[in-house]
């Protein structure tokens, strides 16, 4: 699988956030989107997920498939989509039913396994309201493990995570790349995975 974006431009509220952006990622490759606050990192990820319309340009997934691009993508944004009154288990089992693709992929990990992988084995039955910000983040990231989707769009995936969990998430990302997945992550931190870099915003563009 490949994803190719060319001449992307997105407009929000009459202002052009970025224009003429392009990249191409093959299976097993990652792209780090960097840039100052407000440079359009989150906007780019949302546009790639199909949540924002493009003002110009095109995004192509090769080989072309019957599924919409959105159905091939995992999007983990700033909001965790975790309901405080449901337990971590209920939250994730709902999200995996919602995001599951048909036909189901054989050998997909169970919800418990996914939560345990993110180190949440002890709190599966606790209402999410009692979880810390980092634990909620981990519960949100657990859907990457629970449901297979080839393209991951991660917006600041390591926010609020402790060092041990950061290492686990990086391991999971590396495993996804090794399986032939594609990761596009917006980040300020340096992620310890082999990745190309796409710098957004004025300071980066001014550089030669």
């Amino acid at each position, binding site marked *: 699988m490949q994803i190719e974006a060319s001449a992307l431009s997105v407009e929000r509220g009459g202002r052009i956030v970025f224009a003429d952006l392009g990249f191409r990622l093959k299976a097993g490759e990652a792209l780090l989107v960097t840039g100052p606050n407000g440079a359009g990192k989150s906007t780019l990820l949302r546009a790639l997920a*199909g949540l924002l319309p493009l003002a110009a340009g095109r995004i192509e997934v090769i080989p072309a498939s019957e599924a919409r691009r959105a*159905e091939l993508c995992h999007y983990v944004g*700033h*909001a965790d*989509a975790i*309901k405080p009154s*449901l337990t971590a288990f209920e939250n994730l089992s*709902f999200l995996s039913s919602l995001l*599951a693709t*048909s036909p189901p992929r054989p050998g997909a990990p169970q919800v418990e396994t996914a939560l345990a992988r993110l180190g949440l084995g002890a709190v599966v039955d606790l209402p999410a309201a009692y979880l810390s910000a980092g634990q909620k983040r981990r519960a949100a990231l657990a859907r990457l493990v629970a449901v297979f989707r080839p393209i991951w769009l991660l917006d600041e995936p390591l926010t609020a995570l402790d060092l041990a969990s950061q290492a686990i998430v990086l391991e999971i990302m590396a495993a996804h790349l090794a399986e032939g997945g594609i990761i596009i992550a917006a980040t300020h931190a340096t992620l310890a995975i082999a990745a190309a870099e796409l710098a957004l915003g004025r300071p980066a563009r001014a550089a030669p």
Partner: protein
Amino acid sequence: MKGLPSALRALLRRDLAIGRRIGGAASLGVIFFLCLVAITPFAVGPDQALLARIGPAILWISALLATLLGLDRLFQADAEDGSLDLFLLSETPLELIVLVKCLAHWLLTGLPLVAASPLFGLMLGLDARALGAVTASLFVGTPALTLVGAIGAALTVSLRRGGLLLAILILPLSIPILIFGVAAAAGAVGFVTPFLILCGLTLVALALAPFAAALALRHGAE
């Protein structure tokens, strides 16, 4: 398309669980309904015959207001915490997701109102025929109120205090439902004709509202 029913089942289960737990507004609707029905006799005065005559109208207006209560959160809670983005990334069409969310909302607010209406009608001194007519008309009419309300909830999804705007948008649209609902319940022009028109209104709402609300949500997400 095999994954479709299980995603919708999971959504229904989730919304019902959220509504029933702490912080959910499931029982508030019925309590609000009770409050409205209970204070009306104080305003109208101790005239049993008058109360029995306007009873169906009181029950219908109370049901309308109780349905509006909490309707602004129908999609807003999901939009705020990012669940709406994930709905859009699902294979399941947003129209069906809207429909299932309306079903959950009706099961949590509309159905308890229908179940409580014979009891509350008794408090207003309705006779047996009127009790049955009010309950039947509310059973058929409250889904339409929820569905029409869902359009308003979707339009105001990104507004911080959309509740008031929602009421202003929705109340004019619910006038036909109110007219035929009360007509069927009061029985002044017979029961069957207005009741069938009410059924028709609900079916129209069922056919159109999911598309209208999904369209509004897609634009709201941008």
